């Protein structure tokens, strides 16, 4: 049974179809990369996996069960949504705009604990300190404001917010694209460590194939809202069967040997 799964999912914004017949799955402890160019539908797939939108066609399954099915009772749907929210946490692309500038870091990181009703008071402060430590930030970070930190530090803060509720899966939308190359490597290492130490699963959207290669065991390639190829990342990047994937891999700028 997969942790998250899309079965034949379709989606449209108004009359504009952006996803067609997308099937993919993420197993517990696994990492999945979503690759494609602008407009391919990567972010929409992530919205479906985050439960922010429901697919127009097909299904979104959580632990093997349809998410928020119309047929079940309201209280059963609420219980499932609660489990889902506690299990799934997002990390956004831009650490400059995803952190509220008027809030102290401890308040920002503690937000999932409050909204999910998981911890408060001293217990919450303890969980926040633990989350900061797990992303390699000093304890005094808690009392400061976002503007006092660099891009890489802010992305660590965003990741601390995502892991504070001890979720089962992180859904990250271009988590390293806005970062400098040295910082990018460090944040990728952090994601890798969190996965190993906490058994976290990961879905990562990126246009950067090296970031996908570093972080994801499996890769799904999207083009014009359809899956053109998916499989083990090594197979997709080294022996792509689809012409579009081949063009994508060939276009990656490489360092001279």
């Amino acid at each position, binding site marked *: 049974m997969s942790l998250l799964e899309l079965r034949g999912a379709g989606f449209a914004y108004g009359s504009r179809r952006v996803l067609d017949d997308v099937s993919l799955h993420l197993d517990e402890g696994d990492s999945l990369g979503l690759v494609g160019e602008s407009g391919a539908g990567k972010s929409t797939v992530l919205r479906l996996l985050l439960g922010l939108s429901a697919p127009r066609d097909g299904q979104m399954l959580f632990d093997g069960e349809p998410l928020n099915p119309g047929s079940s009772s309201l209280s059963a749907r609420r219980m499932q949504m609660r489990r889902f929210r506690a299990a799934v946490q997002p990390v956004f692309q831009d650490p400059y705009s995803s952190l509220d500038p008027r809030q102290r870091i401890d308040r920002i990181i503690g937000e999932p604990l409050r909204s999910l009703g998981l911890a408060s008071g001293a217990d919450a402060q303890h969980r926040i300190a633990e989350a900061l430590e797990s992303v390699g930030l000093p304890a005094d970070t808690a009392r400061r404001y976002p503007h006092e930190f660099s891009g890489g530090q802010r992305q660590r803060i965003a990741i601390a917010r995502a892991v504070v509720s001890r979720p089962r899966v992180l859904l990250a939308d271009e988590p390293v694209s806005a970062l*400098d190359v040295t910082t990018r490597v460090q944040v990728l290492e952090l994601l890798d460590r969190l996965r190993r130490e906490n058994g976290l699963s990961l879905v990562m959207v990126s246009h950067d194939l*090296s970031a996908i290669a570093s972080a994801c065991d499996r890769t799904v390639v999207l083009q014009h809202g359809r899956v053109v190829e998916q499989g*083990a*990342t*090594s197979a997709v990047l080294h022996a792509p069967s689809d012409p579009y994937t081949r063009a994508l891999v060939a276009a990656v*700028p490489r*360092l001279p040997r």
Partner: protein
Amino acid sequence: MSILDVSSLTVRSGSAAPVRDVSFSLAPGERVGLIGESGSGKSLTSLAVTGLLPDALRSSGSVLLDGHQVVGAADAELRGLRGPVVQIVFQEPLTALDPLMRVGRQIAEPLRRHLGLRGAELKSAVAAALDEVALPDPRIARAYPHELSGGQRQRVAIAIALAARPQLLIADEPTTALDVTVQDAVLSLLERLVAERGMALLFISHDLAVVSRMVDRIVVLRDGLVVEAGTVSQVLQEPAEPYTRMLVDSARALDAFLDQKLDEREAGA
């Protein structure tokens, strides 16, 4: 004589100096890369070189463009240099293009001003300029910027920049906002145009892989200072400064994810 000679350039903003004592030069037809991370001063350097710094910033030192001093020069003097001597292509073509003007007119403007073209001659020059950046479809000239894709817009921005036949093209992260296949095509286009016209190129980027494809020499900036300069192979193979080494190592680590790490994973699986 150098087409661009920057010597002890400092840019001040209040009491801060985001660019300090920067020196480098480009011979005619030479291709040089300016590389650095955010806050390194690479974009401010390109603005100072073209006299486009915002009013709050002051530059000192010397910038000679084809022998003309840019630092402290009057706007009228600078306008004479922008076009025939230097042109700049920015990261985000949407902000560089006028949203209310058809693309063809925007290309026509520098052709009229700098080459004095009019009427049918001007019209065919616009078509030729679009053709040169691989946009042969006549509908493009009648389109507004928002009707074009990101890659098409950047090609239009390049056509405008090249219209007055500059001797030096400054490209400031010209492909950073583009998808990887579009980036590849725009880089190929720039390579071809620079080679065909024998233009000098100052290519500004945070991406070592992209820079090393486009230029012969690299200048590394950090916190507004030049920390290292050399040929592409010197900088990549034998970086002298610890900072450059860290930059190269990070880029190599990311690059390696595309092959070795995967081989290991296959071996381990």
